[in-house]
């Protein structure tokens, strides 16, 4: 093969790998867990077609089955945990089976190869397989495999040596192997699909590393091409060793794929081994129709609830305006806060429209504080004032002491020899601590907090807006402030205190902690975003410029940052030192209101927990978050079902059961639809990802849920495996979506409710293909309340609007043409 052909083949393979990887979800590292639509790269297809396509390759049903009533109006699939081992039906995954036959590789060999490949990935990710020059998994493996004893046992000394002799580049090796296997180029893409779907977890991580991570990201370089190159190198050696006829792929392509049904594809891959395919039950009712019926029932209940609300009255002047994230967990907090005092609340994307990287004082690595679909454009950092510099440096020293101690402890614990010494030396201290931690988690949490505080001497370091490399200019800050205020509908009638409230979740011993933090901040806690935004809103020069743009923030109004802890139901306020003493009494009232709202929400949430006992409901929620043995510290965004873009007056007073993303929107302030467009193409897309993550984790847990938390082992900090090894697990743990009664999450596709004129919505949808695809493909549904006529309108997939009424007795709504 000459150089030009080699380059052409590389280019072609690169594209074909990417095309094949459309079947694979994206798996972010655990520390920045992002809920994602596992079928996101198939949204060019309709939901129905995408499910049909994916089910050819992975044991995916795509629809909930089995009506089980739970709570009011919820119909969910029931799943016995042991039911995950239901045998798969043979008529699914015909694509996978077909390619396997074409490759002439047995199910046992595929299983063995999956095991070996998983081990190599784990060794690479955890640093055992060294890669000092950061060349990637394939290059490291090429040097490592020559010494791998298991390869000698499987392939023989000569076969093992052949593995290390492939070309240095993964793409070149892959091309050589596919040719060695006699796979015609027309079949390469299917072969790549087979290779990726055989280990969907590692492939999903590799997809993140290949497509989403920054090229200079420090995480291990495990790319899609690496995985495939290794897989097919081994397969090529296997075929060569056995002297079997190579692939009969071209012949098989002409055969009826449905005729080859004798294979037991439980052995095909670990992903396929636990299939729950329920097509026997499908025959009774079309699952798509059943799902739609459930969605319409939810819609009817929602419309009925919102239509019954009294007209908004002129409320008394609020003492504070509180802007919370659109996250469904904010809905309950907002509802209770409005009950307990004169508070006005708003919902806004939790990064407050500020796409920045944040650098904590003493840290060298900034953290991105925006959704993963937004590229951070500037950097903000903590910088102590001169008189605080000493205390700030003491804090850093304390943090270093704690960090070193933790690292030394972990190193000793993980070492083969020293772990025994640690048990001998530290057992007397550790044993009683373990008992206290287990029996009295809140006491332990308090003691640890105090000890940590003593060593760390925490001090609040302000966010600096000083212009430097990468910082925002004054013009950018003004632009941000104006656009954020207009987007959240807060341009006049400012209260004395305005709180921007991010959120985070405090949990113990939880590899999935970041899944409970904020998706809008790339899986990080949200306090820093709020602090950065507040620093800009309080800046006199920014306010002066805003005045020129008709946004008059009174001098006596102060913006404060807060962070809502969704596990503890508390709100921590930041940077209060500079608040005018005249506002102290107001601030005290605000604090009491926030505390009371949190208490009420805690009581409400406690009732939804498994094992809820009426006697201790006040402390139930808080205790859970501090209990290291607790696998269900909070429900996260379970039961999410709708995304409402409307002024608060449309939803105020309604108990939406923490199922609604609430984005403030005033249609009167947005005549050209610019704000609506920003909401629908940004936060709504993130909401759709979250919705689909919960949906597929619920309906197809064997593929899209990471399974039982109690079996998880963390691998290299990037993901979890169930038990001792195997493929990385995808999606949410079972404990995030179900309890002892079955599914807690109700799998429904996202209902987007917009209060705006229909022609404005049409214009926004018309100029954004992503919205057209999501709506016309029935990935989401759109219900509008026309701000002109007050009627409810459903948008059909062809773009036609039909009025919606929710009046009939069984709660089902209906469309009128």
């Amino acid at each position, binding site marked *: 093969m000459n150089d030009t052909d080699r380059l052409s083949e590389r280019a072609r393979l*690169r*594209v074909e790998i*990417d095309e094949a990887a459309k079947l694979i979800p994206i798996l972010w590292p655990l520390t920045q867990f992002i809920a994602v639509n596992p079928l996101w790269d198939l949204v060019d297809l309709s939901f129905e077609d995408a499910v049909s396509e994916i089910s050819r390759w992975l044991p995916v049903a795509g629809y909930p089955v089995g009506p089980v009533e739970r709570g009011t109006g919820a119909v969910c699939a029931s799943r016995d945990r042991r039911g995950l081992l239901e045998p798969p039906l043979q008529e699914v995954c015909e694509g996978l089976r077909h390619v396997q036959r074409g490759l002439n590789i047995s199910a046992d060999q595929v299983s063995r190869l999956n095991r070996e490949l998983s081990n190599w990935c784990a060794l690479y990710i955890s640093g055992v397989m060294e890669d000092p020059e950061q060349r990637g998994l394939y290059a490291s493996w090429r040097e490592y495999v020559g010494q791998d004893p298991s390869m000698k046992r499987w392939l023989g000394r000569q076969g093992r040596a052949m593995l290390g002799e492939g070309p240095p580049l993964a793409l070149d090796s892959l091309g050589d192997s596919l040719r060695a296997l006699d796979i015609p180029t027309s079949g390469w893409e299917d072969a790549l699909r087979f290779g990726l779907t055989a280990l969907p977890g590692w492939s999903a991580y590799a997809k993140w590393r290949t497509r989403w991570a920054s090229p200079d990201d420090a995480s291990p370089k495990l790319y899609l091409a690496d995985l495939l190159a290794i897989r097919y190198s081994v397969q090529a050696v296997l075929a060569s060793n056995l002297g079997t006829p190579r692939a009969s792929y071209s012949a098989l392509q002409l055969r009826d794929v449905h005729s080859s049904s004798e294979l037991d594809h439980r052995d095909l891959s670990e992903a396929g081994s636990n299939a729950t395919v329920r097509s026997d039950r499908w025959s009774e009712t079309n699952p798509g129709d059943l799902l739609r019926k459930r969605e319409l029932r939810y819609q009817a209940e929602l419309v009925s609830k919102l239509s019954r609300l009294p007209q908004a009255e002129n409320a008394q002047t609020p003492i504070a305006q509180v802007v919370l994230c659109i996250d469904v967990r904010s809905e309950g907090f907002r509802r209770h806060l409005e009950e307990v005092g004169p508070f006005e609340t708003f919902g806004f994307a939790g990064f407050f429209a500020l796409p920045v990287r944040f650098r904590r004082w003493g840290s060298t690595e900034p953290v991105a504080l925006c959704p993963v679909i937004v590229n951070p454009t500037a950097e903000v950092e903590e910088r102590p004032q001169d008189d605080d510099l000493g205390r700030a440096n003491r804090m850093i020293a304390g943090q270093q002491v704690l960090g070193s101690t933790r690292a030394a402890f972990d190193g000793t614990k993980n070492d083969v020899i020293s772990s025994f010494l640690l048990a001998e030396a530290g057992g007397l201290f550790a044993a009683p601590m373990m008992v206290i931690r287990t029996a009295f988690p809140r006491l332990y949490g308090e003691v640890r907090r105090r000890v940590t505080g003593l060593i760390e001497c925490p001090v609040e370091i302000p966010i600096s807006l000083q212009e430097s490399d990468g910082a925002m200019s004054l013009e950018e800050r003004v632009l941000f402030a104006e656009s954020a205020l207009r987007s959240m509908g807060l341009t006049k009638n400012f209260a004395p205190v305005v709180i921007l409230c991010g959120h985070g979740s405090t949990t113990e011993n939880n590899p999935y902690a970041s899944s409970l933090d904020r998706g809008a901040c790339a899986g990080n806690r949200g306090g820093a975003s709020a602090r950065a935004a507040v620093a800009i809103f309080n800046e006199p020069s920014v306010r002066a410029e805003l005045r020129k743009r008709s946004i008059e923030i009174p001098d006596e109004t102060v913006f404060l940052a807060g962070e809502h802890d969704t596990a503890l139901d508390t709100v921590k306020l930041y940077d209060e030192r500079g608040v005018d003493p005249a506002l102290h009494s107001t601030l005290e009232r605000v604090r009491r209101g926030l505390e009371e709202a949190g208490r009420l929400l805690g009581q409400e949430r406690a009732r939804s927990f498994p094992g809820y006992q009426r006697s201790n409901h006040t402390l139930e929620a808080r205790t859970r978050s501090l209990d290291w043995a607790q696998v269900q510290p909070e429900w996260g965004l379970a039961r999410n079902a709708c995304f409402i873009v409307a002024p608060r007056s449309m939803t105020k007073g309604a108990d939406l059961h923490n199922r609604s993303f609430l984005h403030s929107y005033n249609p009167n302030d947005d005549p050209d639809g610019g704000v609506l467009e920003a909401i629908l193409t940004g936060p709504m897309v993130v909401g759709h990802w979250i919705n689909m993550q919960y949906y597929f984790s619920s309906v197809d847990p064997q593929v899209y849920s990471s399974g039982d938390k109690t079996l998880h082992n963390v691998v290299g900090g990037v993901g979890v495996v169930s038990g001792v090894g195997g493929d990385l697990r995808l999606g949410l743990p079972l404990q995030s979506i179900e309890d002892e009664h079955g599914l807690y999450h109700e799998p429904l596709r996202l209902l987007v409710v917009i209060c705006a004129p229909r022609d404005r919505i049409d214009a926004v949808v*018309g100029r954004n*293909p992503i919205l057209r695809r999501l709506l016309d493909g029935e990935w989401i549904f759109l219900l509008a309340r026309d701000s002109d006529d007050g009627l409810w309108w459903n948008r059909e997939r062809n773009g036609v609007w039909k009025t919606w009424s929710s009046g009939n007795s069984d709660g089902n709504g209906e469309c009128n043409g």
Partner: protein
Amino acid sequence: MDEHWGLTQMVKVEVVVNGDDVSLISNLFSDVGATGFTAVPNVSGLGHSGFHQGRLAFNDRSGLALLTVVLAKELAGSLIAGLREHFATRSGVMMVSDTWVSRPEYFQQS
């Protein structure tokens, strides 16, 4: 390579692709030996699949991006082969034209 006015002839490839595909296309450029490229995110326009909005306030992945790469003629064929494969299933456009540069060594791997 042809010489004109002291300049060196090379091939310019311009593509408009989905924001989601920028990393794929830039990897493709590297695979065939391009030494750099220019990317313009959030471009707008009208095409086969309707109008595409330009900059979206809170989404940098769903818009369109324009990528321009200049490379030697002997490498262009390989890149075009890969791009044709790409556009067989995805939306976007590719424009290929002759171009002349003053410092050809900047566009070739040493």
